[in-house]
C-alpha cells in the first residue's frame, strides 16, 4: 500500500451534502428497487431487443424496460415526441424531487456520451433508405445531448443553466465532481448533477467493433474476463452546501468529500498499462478530501471487464489501497457510459446507507496479476464509512469521487 501523508489535513472548505437522489437503471426504478436488486445480486443483462444485433459478436445489454417508461411518454403530446433518454431523465428527476421538493438548483451539471443518439440514427436511416422523413425535425431537435436534460428540467419547472459534460465514460463522475467543486468554491449552494445515457445502435456496434463488448458474461477483474456489456439509465443527485441543507432541515443522505480528475494521453481508447492515469485521479480525490487511503472502506471500480482497463485500474487500486473491498457493479447493470458514474455513485450511497458491499457477479477466478479483494458474486454486510467511485473513459479521461456516509 502506498504511504499517503494526508491523515490529518484540516479541510476548511464547505462540506457538500447529498440531499436527494433519483435513479433509473436496469436494476430498477428508484432507490428502493435498486437496493433490493443490488442486495440480491441481480444479473440484468438480456438479449438486445431495440435493434438488430445478429451481426454483432455481443448480443446482450442491460436495458431499462420500456413499459416502465410508458407513464412518462403518455403525459401529453409533447412528451410523446421526446427521446427515450428524456423519459429516463424525467423519471429520475421525479424521484429526486419527490424526496426533496424544496430543492431548487442554481445550476445543473449532467454527464452523457450520446444524448438522443437513436433519433440521429432514425433520421440517417430514413434518409439513406428514402423513407418517410416527416418526423425529421422532431428527431433533429431532440437529438442533442442537452435536450433530455432540458426536457427533465422543463417537466418540473426548473430553468437552471445546464452544463452537459461529455467526457466519454467518465462523464457522470466528472459531472458530480465538477458540481462538488462548484459548491465547495462557495460560488453555488445547490447543484443538480448526475448522468444519463440510453442504448443506441451506433454506440453498441461501436464497442462491438472494437471487440470491447463481450459475447459472454461480463466478469470484471476475473482471470477470464472478455469485455463489457452496454447498459443504460440515469441517476441524479441533489448536492447542497451542508450548512444550507441543515438550516432547512433537509435529509442528508451522505456527503461528497473528494474529487479527482486526470487525463491520460497514452492513447485515444487504451489506458496507460501502468495505471498512472487512474491512480492520479484517485490520489487527487483523496487529497481533495484530506483522506488517507486506509480510510476508504469500499471501491466501486470502473471495472468494465475489458482486459486492459481492469488491469490498469486493478494495478492502481492495489498499489494505492491494498486489499480494500472492490466490486464492479457493471457486472450486473452493464456499462451505462455517461450514466455509469452517476448510477455507481448512487450505488455507493446505498451501500453506505445500508452498510453492505455491492457484489461483483459472474466472478469465477481471480486474476493472478491483480492483488484485489473482489466482492465476489454476493453482497456482503460490512461497516463502511467512505466509498470511492471510479470512472474512466475514451480520450484518457479519469475521474474519482469519494462519498461519505451521513453522520448519525
Amino acid at each position, binding site marked *: 500500500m502506498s504511504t499517503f501523508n494526508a491523515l490529518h489535513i484540516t479541510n476548511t472548505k464547505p462540506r457538500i451534502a447529498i440531499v436527494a437522489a433519483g435513479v433509473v437503471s436496469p436494476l430498477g426504478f428508484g432507490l428502493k428497487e435498486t437496493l433490493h436488486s443490488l442486495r440480491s445480486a441481480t444479473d440484468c443483462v438480456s438479449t438486445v431487443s431495440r435493434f438488430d444485433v445478429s451481426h454483432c459478436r455481443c448480443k446482450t445489454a442491460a436495458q431499462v424496460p420500456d413499459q416502465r417508461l410508458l407513464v412518462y411518454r403518455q403525459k401529453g403530446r409533447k412528451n410523446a415526441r421526446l427521446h427515450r433518454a428524456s423519459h429516463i431523465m424525467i423519471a429520475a428527476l421525479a424521484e429526486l424531487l419527490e424526496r426533496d421538493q424544496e430543492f431548487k438548483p442554481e445550476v445543473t451539471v449532467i454527464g452523457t456520451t450520446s444524448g438522443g443518439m437513436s433519433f440521429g440514427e432514425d433520421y440517417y436511416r430514413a434518409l439513406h433508405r428514402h423513407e418517410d422523413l416527416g418526423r425529421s425535425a422532431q428527431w433533429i431537435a431532440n437529438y442533442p*445531448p442537452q435536450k433530455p436534460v432540458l426536457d427533465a428540467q422543463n417537466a418540473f419547472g426548473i430553468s437552471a443553466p445546464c452544463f452537459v459534460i461529455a467526457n466519454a465514460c467518465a462523464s457522470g463522475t466528472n459531472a458530480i465532481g465538477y458540481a462538488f467543486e462548484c459548491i465547495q468554491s462557495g460560488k453555488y449552494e445547490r447543484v443538480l448533477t448526475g448522468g444519463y445515457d440510453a442504448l443506441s445502435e451506433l454506440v453498441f456496434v461501436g464497442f462491438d467493433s472494437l471487440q470491447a463488448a463481450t459475447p459472454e458474461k461480463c466478469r470484471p477483474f476475473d482471470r477470464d474476463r472478455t469485455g463489457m456489456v452496454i447498459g443504460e439509465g440515469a441517476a441524479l443527485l441533489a448536492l447542497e452546501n451542508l450548512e444550507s441543507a441543515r438550516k432547512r432541515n433537509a435529509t442528508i443522505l451522505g456527503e461528497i468529500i473528494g474529487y479527482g480528475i486526470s487525463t491520460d494521453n497514452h492513447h485515444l481508447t487504451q489506458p496507460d498499462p501502468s495505471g498512472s492515469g487512474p491512480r492520479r485521479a484517485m490520489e487527487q480525490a483523496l487529497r481533495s478530501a484530506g483522506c488517507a487511503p486506509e480510510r476508504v472502506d469500499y471501491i466501486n471500480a470502473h471495472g468494465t471487464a475489458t482486459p486492459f482497463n481492469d488491469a490498469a485500474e486493478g494495478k492502481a487500486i492495489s498499489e494505492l489501497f491494498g486489499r480494500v473491498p472492490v466490486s464492479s457493479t457493471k457486472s450486473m447493470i452493464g456499462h451505462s457510459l455517461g450514466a455509469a458514474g452517476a448510477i455507481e455513485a448512487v450505488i455507493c450511497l446505498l451501500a453506505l446507507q445500508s452498510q453492505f458491499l455491492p457484489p461483483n457477479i459472474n466472478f469465477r477466478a481471480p486474476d493472478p496479476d491483480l492483488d484485489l479483494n473482489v466482492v465476489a458474486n454476493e453482497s456482503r454486510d460490512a461497516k463502511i464509512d467512505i466509498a470511492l467511485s471510479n470512472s474512466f473513459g475514451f480520450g484518457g479521461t479519469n475521474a474519482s469521487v469519494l462519498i461519505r456516509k451521513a453522520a448519525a
Partner: protein
Amino acid sequence: MSVRIAGMGWITPLGRGVDYVWNRLLRGDEASAQTISRNEGARAYQGFLVPNEALNNLPPHPRLRRASAISRFAAAAGLDAMAQAKAMDPKIEMERLALVFAVSNGGVAYTKRFYHDIVESGAQSASPLLFPETVFNAPASHLAAILGVNGASYTIVGDGAVGILGMKMASDLLEMGAANHCLVVAAEEADWLLCDAYHRWRLIKSSPPIELFSNHPRGTILSEGAGAVLLGREGSVKMDSINAGGNFSQRRNSTGVVNRILQDLRDQTAFVVASANGTFVDLAERDAIRKQIPNSIVYSPKAALGESVGASALWQVIIAARALAGKQLPPMRHVAGNAGLRFPAGTNGIGLSAIVSSCGLNQQAAGLRLSI
C-alpha cells in the same frame, strides 16, 4: 481574482490567425460559400468552409493522422492561443493548465461514415478505427495529447451558447484554484448531413447572404472552424461578468431569456457582439437589446463568417476582445434597414466594455461582458 484573456487562436472560413481574420473582417470581407454535395440527385447546400491552406502549417502529430476536421481545427486554434500567450509569458505551467472544450455537433463526418457502414452493410462492417473519433471528447483528447495537458479536461456539449458556458466553466475553474490557466476551445465541422438536418429543422437558407435582424428571418448558412481563448490572470482584456443564462422551451420564449441576460450584463457604454444569424435568434436579440441597451452599437459576425454553432460564441468573444483592443468594429453587411439598432460606423460608440450575447438554436442562451 480577475480572469483575463492571455491568448487567442482562430480558424475560420476567412482563414487562420486572429490578426489575419480580424483584418479581413475590418476590410468588410465575407467568406465565400461553397457547395456541399452528398451525391447525385441529393439536394446540395451552401456552406462556409475553412480553406485547406489554413491548415498547411499545422505541426504534424501522431494524434492528427486520422483525426477529423474538427480535431484539426481545434488543434490549430489551441496551438495558436498557446503560442500567443507564451510569447508574452513563457512560464505557463502546463501541469496547471486545464482544458475546456465546447462543441455542439462534434465529429459529424466520421459519425456519418461510421453509421453509414452499419446501415449499408450491417454491423459487421463497422470500423473500429472510426468509432473512437465519433466520441464527443475525441478532439479534446487529441488536443490534450498535443499540448501535454494531463490534469482537468472537460468537453461540454450544448447549442450555440455552449462557448459561453465553456468560458463560465473555465473562469470558475480558475477562481476555484483548480488551475492557473484554462484553455477554452470551441470547434465545429460542416458536413452535408448537418446542412440537411438544419434545413429540415427550417433553420438554414439555400444561399448567402445571411440577412441579419430582419422582421422575417429567412435562415442562416452553416460554417466551420474553431476558436480558442486562454484564460489566466494576466492580459489586457478582463472578464467582467458571465451569465450562464437559462433555457427556453419554445422559441417565442427566447426573447425573455436573452432579455434577462442582458439586464444582468448591461452597461450603457458597452457595445454588443450578437449571435444574430438570420433566424428567430435575431428577433430575440433585437427586442432584448432595444429594451435593455438601446444605444449600444451592435455587431454580428455571422453574415461574414456564417453560423458555426458550437464554435460561434467563442468567435464572438474573440471579436469582442479584438474590438476592445483596437477600438474598432468591422462593418455590418446585409442588415435590415428597419432593425432599430445602432450598427458600427468607424470607431464611434466603441467603449471600454463589450457584451457578448449568445442565443442558441436549441433552447440555451448565455452571455458575458469583457472590459479593457
